[in-house]
């Protein structure tokens, strides 16, 4: 499949509905193409990560994790971003991300992002805007999860117990090492 056909298919996804084929082709030129097996770990919450992933095929589960317990917060499909803030500020991953199928993804590193924003062309601006929308959505998801976590805090000052986390939806999860 040619990159043109591929990016046209991507641009037709609802989550990328106002991104152009040219945007995606420009993005592809600065990103690294990676293919990951099912069960691979794209990022671990709180740990350094290579950057931001744009899923172009397959599915990824986002989790908050405490020790061996993980709380599934979202299931991402093609057209969605994994930890979009990481390309912008180079910070640690917000979510743990595990591939639930074979995944193809484009990695945007902080270096690539800086090169992108140094170019003030219209394509660069549209790409920055596309990433900004993903960051906003990711922040909103984190805000909702923060509210959800806040609900289980015992009002009487008692210590949070493992059972509290299990009741909230945390479950035993196997995490791998993040893919480079």
């Amino acid at each position, binding site marked *: 499949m040619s990159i043109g056909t591929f990016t046209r298919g991507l641009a037709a996804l609802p989550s990328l509905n106002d991104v152009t084929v*040219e945007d995606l082709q420009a993005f592809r030129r600065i990103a690294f193409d990676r293919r990951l097996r099912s069960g691979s770990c794209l990022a671990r919450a709180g740990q350094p990560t290579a950057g931001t992933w744009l899923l172009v095929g397959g599915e990824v589960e986002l989790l908050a994790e405490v020790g061996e*317990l993980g709380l599934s917060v979202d299931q991402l499909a093609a057209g969605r971003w994994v930890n979009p803030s990481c390309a912008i500020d180079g910070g640690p991953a917000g979510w743990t991300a595990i591939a639930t199928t074979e995944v193809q993804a484009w990695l945007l590193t902080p270096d690539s992002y800086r090169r992108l924003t140094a170019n003030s062309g219209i394509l660069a601006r*549209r790409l920055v805007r596309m990433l900004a929308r993903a960051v906003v959505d990711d922040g*909103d998801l984190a805000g909702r999860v*923060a*509210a959800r976590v806040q609900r289980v805090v015992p009002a009487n000052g008692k210590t949070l117990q493992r059972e509290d986390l299990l009741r909230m939806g945390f479950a035993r999860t196997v995490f791998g090492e993040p893919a480079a």
Partner: protein
Amino acid sequence: MQRPFSACRLLLGHRPAALARRSILCNGDSTIEMTERDSMHDPATASSTTRRGAGPSSVSAESVLPFGAWRTRVRPQSGPVVLPQVQSYVPQPPPDAPPRAPRPPVQTDHIDPARLTPWQLQFARPGPPAHENSQQIGAASAQRDRSTGLGDKAFAEALMRLAPQMPKQHVAQIAAVMFRRELQADEPVFSADSAASAAWLITEGSLRVEFLDDTGCSRTVMAAKPGTFVGIEALLGADRHASTVVAASLAVVYELDQTRLALLDRIVPDAAQYLFEAINAAMARRARGYFGRIDRIIGNCQPSNSPPDPARGGALAFLAAKLGLGDRR
């Protein structure tokens, strides 16, 4: 007055239309079609908006896209077309207009007139409305004029906190397109699931950001301080706000909507670029703040008051160790 179709198309079709609102009148024998299309799109997948009108009638369309290069085409189905009436947000002098008299000096203390073109000055100073938004913008400028200057200083500080690399002349240019608003304690700015219309830069005071938990109960997740944008999703094409934002105390915010951001992008693209990159960085910090909040909420419930061990990955890992949940790795 009638003009041939080619003249109409020349007038409307070959000029960037990012900010234009257009009305086209046609006479009793004409049908016209107005199509807006993003020229950056691949034609095969381009989205377009088409409005048709059969005379005697008018067709109007509005295109407010901050970053797109849009074109409008007018296609008469039959008969002559009456001269299109172009209503642009940015006033443009006719090509044969006599030179204007010098403008009076700008009275605002937040704008360096030497840095602005006459067009920009027209938007920056209070005066007769040049378009439907200018009254609001003028009122905002007048309000800033009446202030002691503290508000403007606070605005500059908030903006520079948001974008430390931004050249200072852009601060004035950005201020010229934003609208000042004072909030009383507990006054709502917007609520979750309400229509997203604008973003607000906090310059004084603080706001509460609330999210709904899984039972539908609203919980305060963060306090937004000066230098923070709230409701930024409105500038990014979102239809609805995800959170509720309420003034925690007396606060001053500056409003920015897509129209004004587009205006800034058109007249001072460098300033818009700085602002957008700053917004992006602010959004990343905002997301990190929420992640930190998750961490702190659980971290605060740890069995003892001893601080988390950073070497073990922060509060979550500390809590995991205390709960006997094993190592994160």
